[in-house]
């Protein structure tokens, strides 16, 4: 199973089978996960009769920090020299939690624990998976490899809710069919990973102290990446804010709000591979920064507003390409700089810095939006992000 791309400098190159395999595992897993996410509020309120108040608490738990677990997963993958085993455990835990939902019934504590276990699974598998993609791919085509992986991943996230809604519409009150189907998909993804994804030879286990992962931050090239990702992440507005602002400033009916994330996701899916290839050719750092420049454009459209569909479409297009230029590209940029034996830990550090910075940025924006009008808050973030980009570009030029 090879995807070939012609006429790259250096001749025809294939995306490694390992990357395609991991992409398909992510596709099936994301479909499995997102089908549950899509019906969870409905299940809790109408299947179990929980009130919205409890739902809100669980919602907070669901979006809670997986940062520490991510670092743990990366560390274990390096320590044992077996990223695939850690990833299998992560995917496996998440698959099993789908069967736990019907078993714990209406117990809020049980549901909370199930959701937490699912997040544990997601947290520990991410860094080993990205380390496997890095290990399997020649450094010069890493951008494209991550692009292929993220495109497949996003496709799964788009398919999942469709399956879930088909099931509960077909079987009235059939939340159990959603959980069973989600479990089957999750388990199939684990089987694909175990039986069909070959990863480059496992290394012998090396005793790595946690401190060595932390010491990675002392390496100047990694520190630079973390600083850039962190600074820009702090100035990134939360997705829901952007969608809400797009709807308001473009004057779209509020009923369309749930559809706006689809615009971003579809753009991300389509753009991930070409933007990844562009990153290989032009430089990943440059594309990563350019992605944030596009985000400034999106904020600009929101702040200026007007013109309905046209403005909304432009903002979502820029937002989707921003994701394509920053999500996998950052991993492609960091991967080759890391020593093989500390790669999963290092990628986990970078991901965590970015994720924490973005959450802080989203919270900060929340305060800004409450203090000022939404459009002014966007204008302020756009100016700050432009200043940060200017600073980073100057630093690079020196």
């Amino acid at each position, binding site marked *: 199973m090879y995807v070939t791309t012609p006429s790259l400098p250096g001749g025809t190159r294939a995306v490694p089978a390992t990357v395609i395999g991991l992409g398909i595992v992510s596709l099936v897993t994301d479909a499995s996960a997102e089908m549950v996410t*899509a019906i969870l*509020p*409905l299940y809790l*309120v*109408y299947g*179990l*009769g929980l*009130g*919205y*108040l409890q*739902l*809100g*608490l669980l*919602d*907070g738990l669901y979006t809670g920090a997986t940062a520490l677990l991510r670092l743990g997963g990366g560390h274990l993958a390096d320590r044992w020299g077996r990223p695939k085993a850690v990833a299998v455990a992560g995917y496996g835990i998440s698959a099993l939690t789908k069967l736990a939902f019907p078993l714990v019934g*209406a117990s809020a504590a049980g549901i909370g624990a199930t959701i937490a276990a699912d997040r544990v699974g997601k947290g520990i598998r991410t860094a080993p998976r990205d380390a496997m993609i890095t290990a399997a791919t020649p450094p010069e085509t890493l951008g494209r490899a991550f692009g292929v992986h993220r495109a497949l991943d996003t496709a799964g996230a788009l398919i999942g*809710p*469709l399956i879930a*809604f*088909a*099931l*509960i*519409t*077909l*079987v*009235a*009150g*059939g939340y*159990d*069919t959603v959980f*069973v*189907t989600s*479990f*089957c*998909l999750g388990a*199939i993804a684990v*089987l*694909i990973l*175990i*039986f*069909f994804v070959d990863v480059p030879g496992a290394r012998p286990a090396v005793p790595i102290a946690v401190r060595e992962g932390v010491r990675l931050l002392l390496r100047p090239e990694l520190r630079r990446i973390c600083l850039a990702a962190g600074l820009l992440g702090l100035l990134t507005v*939360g997705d*829901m*804010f952007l*969608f*809400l602002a797009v709807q*308001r400033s473009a004057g779209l*009916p*509020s*009923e*369309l*709000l*749930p*559809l706006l*994330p689809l615009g971003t996701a579809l753009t991300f899916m389509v753009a991930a591979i070409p933007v990844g290839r562009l990153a290989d050719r032009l430089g990943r750092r440059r594309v990563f920064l350019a992605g944030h420049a596009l985000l400034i454009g999106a904020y600009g459209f929101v702040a200026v507003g007007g013109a309905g569909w046209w403005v909304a479409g432009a903002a979502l297009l820029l937002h989707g390409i921003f994701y394509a230029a920053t999500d996998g590209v950052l991993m492609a940029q960091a991967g080759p700089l890391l020593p093989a034996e500390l790669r999963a830990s290092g990628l986990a550090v970078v991901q965590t810095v970015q994720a924490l910075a973005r959450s802080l940025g989203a919270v900060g924006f*929340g305060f800004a939006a*409450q203090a000022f*009008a*939404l*459009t002014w808050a966007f204008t302020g973030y756009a100016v700050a992000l432009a200043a940060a980009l200017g600073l980073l570009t100057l630093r690079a030029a020196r």
Partner: protein
Amino acid sequence: MNKRHVGIALIVALVLGGAGYVTWRALPSTEAQAAPLDLTRPGTLIAVSTTDQRVRQTAPSGTAGTGPACQRSYAAAGTLICLRSALPMGFQAAIFDREMVLRKTIDLWGTPSRARVSPSGRLVAWTVFHSGDSYLRDGEFSTIAGVYDLSTGEHYGSLEDFSATINGVIVRMDEHVNYWGITFAADDRTFYATMALAGRTWLVRGDLVARTLVAIGTDVECPSLSPDGTRIAYKKRVAGGWRLHVAPLAGFSVTGSAPSVALAEVLSVDDQPAWADETTVAYGVNGAIYAVPADGSGAPTLLRSASSSPSFP
């Protein structure tokens, strides 16, 4: 058999197992075809069964009819509104007439929350919520409340498009305002609903013709107008959740609290109550439907277990 064959065999087993389970659950149940709903039969309770999500009508003598599968429903004067999931991935309001013929479907953009029909059966209302836009803080939901007029075909998509005032001050369009829990007056023009703004909730009186909303009270959620149009039953936020209250409509003001009575239910009730008659209020709590006297006396009585969304045609 090599390793890959083992993998293929296991994957095929999972596909077949999952498909088999879904097929088995999708097969129509073997219970005899029950009678349809009678949306004008007094003395009955129409509610959604939580075991199979079908709308069921019960008379004091037992089950009287079975209807469509819904997440939330409400029936009055020969009209049934049924909020349910719809393909490809969304929800709809399905509106049935007294012959139980599907008359209209309206796409909804969020998870069903509240449903109501005006006393004449002419207007229907819904509230849906998005968990995704809880951007202020966790547990705060964005809601969309809309109204449809069956006689004119007018679709009042969202109350956010109405002009709202508190004490004569216009609520700005860019403020984060939420509406939910519509209840109708007998004139098919006036309605009441909850407005949430800046962490407070208000009782608003709406006018469908003028497209206006005026705040007339505070601390009211999910209002329900009594059949005689003089009192509001509602849930009021208290420590640990919500308590059902009833207050005279004339007693509300935007500057003080209404002279309300707390109803005898001590559990937290997160539901829009429905008046069973002039003296009794019904509601769903803990997966069952109960009723209490509207004057604060007495105690809750169980009307139907394993049910939600009460209405009294």
